[in-house]
């Protein structure tokens, strides 16, 4: 059932126009936060970090550091009594009485240069009293586990998060639907599995950087590489007990975010340090090593699956438990565990469901949002278990997914009715493109080939009232400036917004620019650049703003021409009348108005369109059963298939081909949609084969590119095919929904399934390094 839309798709929506930011990015002109020049007055900050995974701070003495020539200030937790956090305020900006992970910020120094600041760090004396620590999420839930946040009961939390005081559990999301216990007896096959997913780093190529400055009146300016200028303003203001309007966040282009630069991670440190040297800008730039363990990381996961189906392969019951290794602070992570809970069945129609998604504090780096927001983690094991279940009744894994995948009109496990979705079509197209069911011979006798398949879903995870707003204004020459608060982080959102504004207004794409950098003093409000929500949510706001501007123009012209606005249109930058065939360029109209047709004076004036959007239809869910009419705005769904070749000599796995098919509702810019699908698939390959923080007693053993490898150009598969499926979204602009995160979600399990297909082995955790694959093959007797 397709819904039609009031505004028909018209150019340039649906066209693969050139990126708005392309030219400046290939010439080196594009400005990133670290490129902004502050002159010789700039001070540099460095952070003293906890060497202990868990300890009490007994004493800090910074007097020797302060005496070092060139040092301008030292700040500690004494200056930061307030709590900070997005969904749960469980964190001080600088640690006060306790440190909870190796890397926790204990003190900050501002000095004339980085080197002096570094020297000062060595002079700060901190006395710690080490405490027993928690390094495993399952162990962390036990009653005798060391308690990491004794004050959990007092922390402020949003109303859909349920911390359990006096435990390490900061959220527990549950789904109870149908009769799971009774269903097992009816199952022809039941599969039980446990999988682990390690902590993953986002690895934006641009490390975090923030520059802060306080003026004498207490106004704070923060320049940062940021996905969330408004959320940063809000959270930092709350933590410092000041008004939001006292902080201005300026956020130029972001050199890759993937979630790492959402919420607040290190930016507040710069703000607090700058507060001690009012009038001077202070820059804090993380080293690549700090980047690996002191910003957010993807949470680790221990997942237990129990799935059952009947003889036809119809899923009857699912009982999943997710223990999230959420790290030292879970201010953001609590909502990932919620998302992991309500989407915890994966994209399947299952009548009897029990899901427990448990957010556990550990003395590990801080878990936070990362591309997919819990979905890659849970799909990693779920999609392997589904394959196993299919095989256990001799059913082809693709056929199994055909029979069970979620379809429009199905009731999802939270009780919501699924909107129209193209998932079945994605499955067919991906299977056809990979030539499912046919096995090509390997390229050498020492190699084995296999194919793997996986499907996914993901909804934007956010508070129910996350809003977007936009401004569309004309310039004298009728070019258009679109102002938004969402951030260009590489995904192409500025381009897409310009396309939408151009289409809604009726002007050429080339006439539209998007105002940058995003600046909370000038840009309209946007919650955050996360959740793959901009095309949809900010797009709705931009479209509304453009239609508002268009209405103003048409009403003005109608008055001037004494016509009905319904007979007028804007086409290619001209107002035309379908009735009189009169035409006039927007240039003559949009700033100076038009002469009054009935006498002296003018009518109209500068045209300024405004638009905002907030989903008002998301409902709460019952705390005990997870049931409610509408858990989320919508789901983007998709399928991926890969063909791999395993080298029996080394265990090395090569992805020969990847196929991705996603239902994006409407591809506003098809080539950029495909670019997201390709980039996500390669990031998925990277995660599958190379990535994972190696943690030992809370210490990251591989905090550098030397030992945290990511895919290079030589690791990208020879061939990736991206397939766009379009089943329109009723609340999306032109029917569009997001794709940015989704594209990496099914890759890892598809690879795991392909490895199984090739050599018959399953591993209980990625990365599928050559060593892990070889040793598993050896254990299984496949190789010697």
């Amino acid at each position, binding site marked *: 059932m397709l819904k039609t839309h009031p505004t028909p798709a018209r150019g340039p929506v649906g066209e693969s126009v050139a990126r708005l930011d392309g030219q400046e990015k290939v010439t080196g002109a594009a400005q990133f936060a670290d490129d902004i020049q502050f002159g010789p007055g700039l001070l540099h900050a*460095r952070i003293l970090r906890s*060497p202990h995974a868990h300890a009490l701070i007994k004493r800090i003495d910074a007097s020797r550091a302060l005496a070092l020539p060139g040092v301008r200030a030292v700040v500690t937790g004494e200056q930061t009594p307030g709590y900070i956090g997005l969904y749960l305020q469980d964190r001080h900006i600088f640690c006060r009485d306790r440190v909870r992970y190796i890397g926790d910020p204990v003190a900050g120094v501002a000095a004339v240069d*980085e*080197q002096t600041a*570094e020297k000062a760090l060595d002079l700060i004396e901190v006395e710690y009293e080490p405490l027993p620590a928690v390094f495993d999420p399952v162990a962390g839930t036990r009653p005798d586990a060391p308690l990491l946040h004794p004050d959990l009961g007092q922390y402020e939390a949003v109303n859909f998060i349920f911390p359990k005081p006096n435990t390490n559990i900061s959220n527990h999301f549950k789904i109870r639907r149908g009769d799971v216990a009774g269903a097992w007896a009816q199952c022809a096959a039941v599969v039980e599995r446990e999988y682990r997913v390690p902590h993953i780093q986002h690895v934006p190529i641009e490390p975090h950087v923030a520059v802060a400055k306080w003026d004498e009146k207490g106004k704070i300016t923060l320049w940062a590489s940021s996905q969330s200028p408004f959320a940063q303003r809000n959270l930092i203001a709350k933590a410092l007990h000041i008004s939001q309007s006292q902080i201005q966040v300026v956020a130029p282009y972001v050199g890759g975010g993937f979630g790492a630069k959402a919420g607040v991670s290190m930016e507040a440190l710069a703000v607090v340090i700058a507060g001690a040297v009012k009038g001077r800008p202070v820059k804090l*730039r993380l*080293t*690549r*090593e700090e980047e690996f363990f002191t910003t957010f990381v993807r949470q680790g996961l221990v997942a237990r699956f129990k799935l059952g189906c009947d003889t036809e392969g119809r899923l009857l019951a699912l009982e999943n438990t997710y223990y999230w290794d959420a790290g030292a602070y879970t201010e953001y992570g609590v909502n990932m565990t919620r998302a992991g809970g309500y989407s915890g069945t994966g994209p399947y129609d299952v009548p009897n469901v029990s899901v427990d998604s448990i957010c556990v504090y550990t003395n590990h780096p801080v878990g936070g949002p990362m591309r997919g927001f819990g979905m890659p983690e849970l799909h990693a094991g779920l999609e392997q278990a589904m394959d196993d279940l299919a095989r256990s009744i001799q059913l082809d894994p693709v056929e199994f997914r055909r029979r069970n995948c979620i379809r429009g009109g199905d009731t999802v496990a939270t009780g919501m009715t699924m909107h129209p979705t193209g998932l079945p079509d994605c499955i067919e197209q991906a299977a056809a493109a990979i030539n499912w069911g046919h096995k090509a011979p390997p390229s050498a006798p020492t190699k084995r080939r296999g194919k793997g398949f996986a499907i996914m879903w993901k909804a934007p995870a956010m508070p129910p009232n996350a809003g977007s707003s936009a401004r569309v204004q004309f310039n004298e020459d009728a070019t258009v400036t679109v102002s938004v608060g969402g951030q260009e982080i590489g995904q192409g959102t500025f381009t897409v917004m310009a396309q939408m504004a151009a289409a809604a207004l009726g002007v050429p794409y080339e006439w539209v620019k998007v105002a940058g950098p995003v600046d909370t003093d000038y840009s309209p409000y946007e919650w955050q650049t996360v959740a793959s929500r901009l095309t949809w949510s900010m797009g709705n706001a931009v479209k509304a703003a453009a239609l508002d501007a268009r209405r103003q123009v048409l009403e003005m012209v109608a008055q001037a021409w004494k016509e009905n606005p319904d007979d007028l249109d804007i086409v290619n930058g001209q107002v035309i009348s379908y009735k009189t065939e009169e035409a006039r360029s927007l240039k003559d109209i949009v700033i100076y108005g038009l002469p009054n047709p009935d006498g002296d004076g003018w009518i109209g004036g500068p045209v300024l369109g405004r638009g905002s959007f907030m989903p008002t239809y998301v409902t709460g869910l019952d705390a005990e059963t997870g049931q409610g009419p509408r858990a989320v705005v919508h789901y983007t769904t998709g399928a991926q298939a890969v063909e791999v070749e395993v080298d029996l*000599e*080394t265990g*090395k796995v*090569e992805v020969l081909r990847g196929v991705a098919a996603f239902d994006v509702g409407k591809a506003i810019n098809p080539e950029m949609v495909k670019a997201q699908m390709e980039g996500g698939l390669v990031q998925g390959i990277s995660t599958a*084969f*190379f990535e994972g923080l*190696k943690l030992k007693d809370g*210490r990251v*053993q*591989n905090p*550098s590119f*030397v*030992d945290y*490898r990511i*895919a*290079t150009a*030589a*690791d990208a598969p020879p061939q990736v095919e991206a397939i766009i499926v379009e089943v329109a979204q009723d609340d999306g602009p032109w029917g569009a929904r997001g794709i940015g995160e989704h594209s990496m979600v099914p890759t890892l399990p598809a690879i795991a399934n392909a490895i199984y297909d090739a050599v018959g082995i399953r591993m209980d955790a990625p990365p599928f*390094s*050559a*060593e892990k694959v*070889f*040793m598993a093959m*050896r254990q299984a007797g496949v190789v010697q």
Partner: protein
Amino acid sequence: MVTAHPGLPEFDYVKPASLAEASRFLAEHAGAARAFMGGTDIFVRLRDGAWQAQYLVDVKHLEGMQALSFDPAAGLTIGAAVNLNRINAAPSVREHYPVLAEAAGTVASYQLRTRATLAGNVCNASPAGDTLAACLVLAGQVSVHGLAGPRQVALKDFFRGPGKTALQPGDVVTALRFPLPPAGYAAKYLKLGRNTLGDLAIVGVAALGYREAAAAAGLRFRVGLASVAPTPLLLEPAALSAGPVDEAALTAAAEAVAAAAAPIDDVRGSAEYRRLMVRNLARQALTEVWRKIAA
């Protein structure tokens, strides 16, 4: 805990006018001064605080350092400052010592190899150094300028432990020399990293083989190993010199090579996997070399 700093620590940059001056300076400031080439090892270690140096002594401009020459009678001379891309691209190396070009081309990335040198790789004496196994099977020699003037050290006597070499205070490596390889020889370097390209070696295996009438089998083989012992290893598998060379002998040789390795567990790989990979890669490399020279 090694913490990487945002920049390099303070040091003096010294550019001596002659080798003699360089040796004198390095000897006078033993422990405080380091010679450097590309700096690709030094800068990283200074930055993360693993090494300290008061002086960095740049010797790349000194006599002969930039020369790469091949003499059909004497062999190949590679000045210490010749970068790995030049070695990888040099026609004389590609023709007469292709295994060296191959090994040089596996180090890091193209842009890093514009700076990184063979001499630096050798002097750094990391067990994982990618060129070391190839240099060993090619019977390389190190030309050293010390306080007492120039001397030659055979590479097989050069490595003393991880990061430890036969170099003395005041020594500057000026070149690496490779004798003419045995006529009709073949050689192969196989590297296993985590990524397809660009990673450090989990295991590196160089194999070289040639015909020699005096050997029982009529063939001789050498194997060089990287990343599987405190120093790179040079081995002559007995299984291949005693009797006829066939698949069984190659497998036995590979097993023996693996047994000679003394790998450790680290973040890149376990000792057990390394040993198994030495076996598999040695068998692959030896088989490939054998097919070529036996043909």
